[in-house]
């Protein structure tokens, strides 16, 4: 736990203060400090950090002053701007100082979600709903992929892109379907760029995506704690806390993570408005993203988009802790294997054959 705890997760609550200065609205409710879910822990034996705590307080005071000036300047400069423009700047300013989603109180989570929904409306003119649905009790998600059923139709990839608001300009995709010659067992010998009638004689098809490892190397290397494993086993990313260093991309042995080199572009008529804070809300330039087992769907009891779209039934998704689930039937009755098991990453994504 301690290795994945965000170390610099100190919340700077400028929201209420700024609202008082920058606009004539009444101050918002102050964030309660009492129910802070994870009070900051100073790593023991680090005198440097002890010192910097004082410095940080000093910085905070300084920054608060700067914020007041900034807000005043923004208000000054925005004379003549439309109300919507002013509101957008105000919201973006408040968003800039929010904390790590993991350390936010319920109240702060609600506030940032409300801001993001409003910002989406102001920027794109489209109403979206962003959920913050937490993990269900007693649920650990698992996935099984039938390599003797998959026929390489790629319906899963299409559904994934539509569902998760992936960047269309760079053709970002979480799923890759490898066409592999019979007799070979590694995707390294496969071709993920095929475009011909499928299935091809003498080939089988193997899909990869994020395997939601139980022991995820990507989480260990994140220097800011912007990615972590949720209680239901899904590894998620706080897109607003990610600094884009791409360590996780390098650490993942399965090439599951994607980086946004550009501002993602989504056609107006294809934006999926049903979103989750840790899932498919549109990302921004310079942050990582990856498959989340469609957290916005799976936490509502639905199948991930890829499993729902699969026309051959090769994709099995369910709760590993439920002995009656389909995934448990597969694990108990079929020969299963995982990729790179020797690394000890414990992926929750099994391959099997009939």
């Amino acid at each position: 736990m301690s290795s994945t705890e965000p170390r610099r997760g100190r919340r700077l609550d400028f929201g209420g203060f700024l609202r008082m200065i920058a606009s004539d609205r009444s101050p918002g409710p102050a964030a309660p400090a009492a129910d802070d879910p994870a009070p900051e822990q100073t790593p023991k034996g680090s005198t440097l950090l002890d010192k910097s705590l004082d410095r940080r307080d000093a910085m905070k005071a300084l920054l608060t002053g700067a914020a007041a000036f900034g807000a005043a300047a923004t208000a000054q400069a925005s004379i003549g701007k439309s109300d919507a423009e002013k509101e957008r700047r105000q919201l973006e300013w408040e968003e800039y100082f929010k904390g790590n989603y993991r350390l936010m109180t319920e109240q702060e989570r609600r506030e940032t979600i409300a801001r993001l929904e409003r910002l989406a409306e102001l920027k794109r003119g489209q109403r979206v709903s962003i959920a913050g649905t937490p993990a269900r009790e007693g649920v650990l998600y698992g996935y099984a992929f039938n390599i003797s059923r998959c026929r390489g139709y790629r319906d899963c990839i299409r559904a994934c892109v539509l569902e998760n608001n992936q960047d269309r300009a760079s053709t970002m995709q979480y799923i890759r379907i490898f066409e592999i010659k019979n007799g070979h067992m590694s995707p390294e010998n496969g071709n993920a760029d095929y475009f011909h009638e499928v299935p091809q004689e003498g080939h089988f098809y193997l899909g990869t995506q994020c395997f939601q490892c139980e022991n995820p190397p990507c989480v260990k290397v994140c220097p800011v704690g912007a990615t972590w494993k949720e209680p239901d086993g899904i590894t998620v990313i706080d897109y607003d806390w990610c600094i884009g260093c791409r360590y996780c991309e390098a650490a993942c042995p399965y090439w599951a993570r994607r980086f946004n080199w550009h501002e993602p572009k989504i056609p107006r008529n294809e934006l999926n408005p049903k979103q989750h804070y840790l899932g498919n809300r549109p990302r921004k330039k310079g942050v990582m993203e990856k498959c989340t087992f469609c957290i916005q769907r799976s936490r509502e009891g639905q199948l991930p988009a890829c499993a729902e779209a699969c026309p051959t039934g090769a994709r099995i998704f369910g709760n590993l802790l439920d002995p009656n689930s389909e995934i448990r039937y597969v694990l108990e009755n079929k020969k299963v294997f995982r990729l790179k098991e020797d690394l000890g990453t414990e992926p929750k994504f099994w391959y099997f054959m009939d």
Partner: protein
Amino acid sequence: MRRATLPLLFALLLAPLACQRAPESYDYAPALTASAAERQMTIERWSAEPVAIQSTTVLVARELDEAETCARCHDGKGTGRKPDGAGHDDIAIEHAAGMECSDCHERNRPQLLTTLDGNVPLHDQAARCRECHRNQVGDWLGGSHGKRLSGWAETRVVANCAHCHNPHSPSLKPRMPVATPVIVPERLGPMESNHVEH
């Protein structure tokens, strides 16, 4: 004249924009989505199977009524032929080698399927399929074969055999893979990035 055409042109140009509407949510398998009326068969008749199955499982099979099957062509006056005279000769059986109609259909009442335990209606097809494809039907009941139509946390609803397999030609046919949604930057349509120019 010119005054009239300009607004018209504008209207024509804007028309596709007005039609661009964001979806409420996506349905990725519309052809396979089961309607409430289709969730008819329960698991009871399978309870003696060797596979342990969830008592909540619902096997989807649309109950075909007379109007959809025989009465679609046969008017009940004993013509015995479809109006175009084709009969059932247009059905090519590409199942196991040497199979013929009466291997599955009751000879004089083809709306029924024959099984060792007696005749069953068409929508109860798995009872017939199982007599040869026992492993597949076992996996289907258990959960590793076939298509789940409900969410993982909901009552298990699975498609019946003929949902995916045409009984007369059961193998799925090769086709081109689906094209993924891509934007070619040179041919940008009405598109928005999340970014706003200041």
